[in-house]
């Protein structure tokens, strides 16, 4: 197991380096002079030159990359153009709303998704199966930004049950969480169904039935328990995507989280903040996938020996 973990971690290092290089290059890939972009359209040549020197843009590319990596390890990601604070100071307060939204979305989506998947598998080919799968495929197909706006229209504007924007109270999290978790719920429902159907064909399920175990016990203790590892793995893999999915939800509900900050920073051409956020989203995606892989390898010996 130790060798497997080390192999997986070492395998991720080149990918991390490639990602950091790509994101470092982000500012250089934008057409035009990055120093002028950061200085603004009205800046004088002198001001542009000062920014070029301050940011080290007049140095060779590899030296700049070295400085960027040094900054990453010391937490120095530069300064935000918009509010004159450091990038870290700009980003840190935005974590809390996004993390809370991610957790609440994940909780309801997992519970409902797994429940629908089990029901669909047990009632395979029956109207209940079709009903659950219609919900699931609709969840994958619905545009999150539209769903959010319709939820605001029905539950905030018409019924007045929830606030239309912001995160002042606990109730404020309900509609954004539903919007954000809808896709994950759908993916988990479909995956749980197919995994359950596979397991329900296995010999140990037939044996359990032959021994006279009740049907609910066969489903939950035999079939579902064996599906659980895969379902948890798939659910974990969705967290990374969910965090970046906050971009749409936070924009619709005007939530001051990381996703909204990314959109605002792009609009404001605050490229240092954009760079830092892209790096954060990519790193958390890779790290969550790595942890999931390792845990899955730990739980399923077939994977780590293949």
């Amino acid at each position, binding site marked *: 197991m130790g060798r497997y973990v080390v192999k997986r971690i070492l395998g991720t290092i*080149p*990918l991390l380096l*490639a*990602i950091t290089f*790509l994101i470092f290059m*982000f500012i250089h*890939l*934008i*057409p035009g002079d990055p120093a002028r972009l950061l200085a603004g359209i009205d800046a004088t040549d002198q001001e542009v030159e000062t920014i070029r020197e301050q940011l080290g843009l007049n140095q060779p590319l590899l030296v700049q990359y070295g400085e960027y990596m040094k900054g990453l390890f010391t937490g120095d990601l530069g300064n935000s153009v918009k509010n004159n604070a450091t990038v870290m100071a700009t980003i840190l307060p935005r974590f809390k709303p996004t993390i809370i939204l991610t957790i609440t979305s994940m909780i309801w989506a997992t519970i409902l998704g797994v429940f629908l998947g089990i029901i669909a598998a047990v009632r395979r080919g029956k109207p209940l199966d079709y009903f659950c799968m219609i919900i699931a*495929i*609709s969840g*994958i*197909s*619905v*545009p*999150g*930004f*539209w769903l959010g*706006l*319709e939820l*605001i*229209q029905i539950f905030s*504007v018409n019924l007045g049950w929830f606030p239309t924007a912001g995160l002042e109270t606990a109730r404020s999290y309900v509609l954004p969480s539903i919007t954000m978790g809808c896709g994950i719920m759908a993916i988990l429902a479909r995956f749980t169904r*197919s995994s359950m*159907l596979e397991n329900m064909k296995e010999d140990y399920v037939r044996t359990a039935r032959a021994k006279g175990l009740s049907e609910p016990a066969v489903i939950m203790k035999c079939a579902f328990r064996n599906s659980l590892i895969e379902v948890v793995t798939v659910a974990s893999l969705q967290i*990374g*995507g969910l965090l*970046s*999915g906050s*971009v*749409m939800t936070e*924009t*619709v509900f005007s939530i001051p989280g990381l996703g909204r900050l*990314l*959109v605002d920073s*792009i*609009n404001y051409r605050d490229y240092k903040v*954009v760079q830092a956020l*892209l790096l954060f*989203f*990519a790193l958390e*995606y*890779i790290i969550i996938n790595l942890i999931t892989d390792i845990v899955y390898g730990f739980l399923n010996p077939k994977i780590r020996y293949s």
Partner: protein
Amino acid sequence: MAEESVVRQSAEELPKPKSPYKEFARKFLKRKAAVVSLIFIIVLALVAIFGPMVIRYNPNAADYTALLQGPSPKHIWGTDEFGRDVFARLIAGTRLSLSVALGSVVVGTAIGIILGLLAGFYGGIVDSIVMRGSDILFAFPDILLAIAIVAILGPGVINVVIAVAVFTVPSFARIIRSATLEVKEAPYVEVARSIGCTNSRILWKHIFPGTVQSMIVNFTMRIGTAILASSSLSFLGFGANVTEPDWGTMLSQGRNYLNTAPHMVLCPGLLIFLTVLAFNLLGDGLRDTLDPKIK
């Protein structure tokens, strides 16, 4: 002589081999949701081609006497903040929205196929480069990658197509690579190699047709994803940025009038949802038809 007639007779008794296309059509037609989705997509394609020619109102003509009106016999899906007919704009927007989605998936698929074929066929360093490149692109969630690319290139139709195409490439490269690895060991490829066919002939004439089946389902489903991604970009203000109507932009404009004109959000959103749903259901139907193991 008698033996020959017996052989001929028993050959005549054998059931005729079914045409694979007829067999596919027979299985596909059993999947009602997929058939309905296909019909919906065909209608949508016809609307995209001919719709703008037959609509009653000019989609860009403002009518300041009919601002933010709800659905009525005159304007069946109401009007927007400039008094423009929402139905006419949605019909006109079908062309742009579908073209952007289809264009990006076609470009992404073409690049993915070439990379996947080369990686699977040649292996070694080519395979490593393609697969590590895919890993890097996979490290970014789809919409985030598209936003990053549009942030670099700026808004515009071509840039949105590029952005959506880029995140389409790695999934195709992987699928085609694994299909190529499987197909290149097949006896007919071995025969082609032994009679002296060139690598490019083996790749395109013998291996590529064998990978098409695994590509079709992903292609169909990716169109749905591309519609979602391009309309998300438009909604965020990074989209096509043209005067022509587009579903995502219409929805984005409508959110400012949620209280007074909810139809401005409902109609384009519903159309995006139904279109993506149709492509996903069609993809599901094709997968179940092509791969009998999956149920």
